[in-house]
């Protein structure tokens, strides 16, 4: 194996694309060739540095353009979705509780007035108008 072939195979080796049957001849060459070993070390160093290259965030303006087209570019995260659902629910629950409280208050108030009126008219206020079968002897 000559050095050019070996360096090409180093390339494939670093990319995990080298055929297994070529691994042994490549390593045999690397064991004997200082230049190719140096190439492997340098290329591996650069290859590792490439892994640190990050993606550049796309400008927010792009999202806005896609939003106009009806595509909601930024999905609402799950936690926000929960909040989005719970806020209207909380408002609705509050309104319901308030309405139920008013209904109860009015019902109680009306009932209270009626019972007072009923009490005023009630025969129970006066002495019971019934005759006992066993009249007391009040002497």
């Amino acid at each position, binding site marked *: 194996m000559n050095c050019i072939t070996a360096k090409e195979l180093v390339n494939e080796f670093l990319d995990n694309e080298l055929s297994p049957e070529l691994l042994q001849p490549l390593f045999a060459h690397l064991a004997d060739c200082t230049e190719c070993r140096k190439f492997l070390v340098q290329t591996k160093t650069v290859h590792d540095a*490439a892994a640190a290259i990050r993606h550049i965030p796309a*400008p927010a303006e792009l999202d806005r353009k896609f939003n106009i087209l009806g595509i909601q570019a930024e999905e609402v995260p799950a936690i926000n979705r929960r909040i989005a659902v719970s806020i209207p629910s909380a408002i609705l629950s509050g309104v319901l509780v308030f309405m139920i409280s008013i209904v109860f208050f009015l019902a109680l108030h009306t009932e209270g007035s009626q019972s007072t009126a009923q009490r005023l008219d009630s025969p129970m206020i006066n002495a019971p108008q019934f005759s006992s079968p066993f009249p007391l002897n009040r002497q």
Partner: protein
Amino acid sequence: MTKETHNALYHMDTLSDEELTVQFRNGHLNAGAKLYTKHKDTIYSFCFRMVGDAEAAKDATQETFLKMMTKIHSLQQGMAFRSWLFAIARNEVLIVLRREKIVPMERLEDDEPVFDASNPLSIALEGELSEHLQRAVGALKPAYREAYLLRETEGLSYEEIARTTDSTVSAVKSKLFKSRVALNTMLTPYMERRKL
């Protein structure tokens, strides 16, 4: 909407690109939005590193996703979505490079230099290697740069790069090899100084 579709959309975060593509084809815009959100930074980074200009990269990215939406039906069943999307982005990059009168990618001779000597690249002897590497990658000729970026920053296989760039696996191997030799040459002074 069927119950199955509803469930699939509800669990969209767990869907693969291919599953999202099927949903999008069936008219679910949310699936298209998810594909956009998943790949926008990747495509923008690729476009930016290829054309070297934020505004042009933004336009190329926008065109890429507009074409994704309008041509989603042309994506054949079983074809990798990512390779297909990169192929669209590459075409948009080519349009920009042609407009800017940069050397066309198709015309590449074996003896042509891999990097542009006129590009003012001065590798400083300080800082992180990855920073210098990014500048060195920027000095590679577009055809080599795209192969290198698709492999090293996007992790595409040789086969996928060949499909994306409408090339052959052996041509991809050759471009990657030459790119790495050129990058080693450009970065050697820095690495020797830093004893890397």
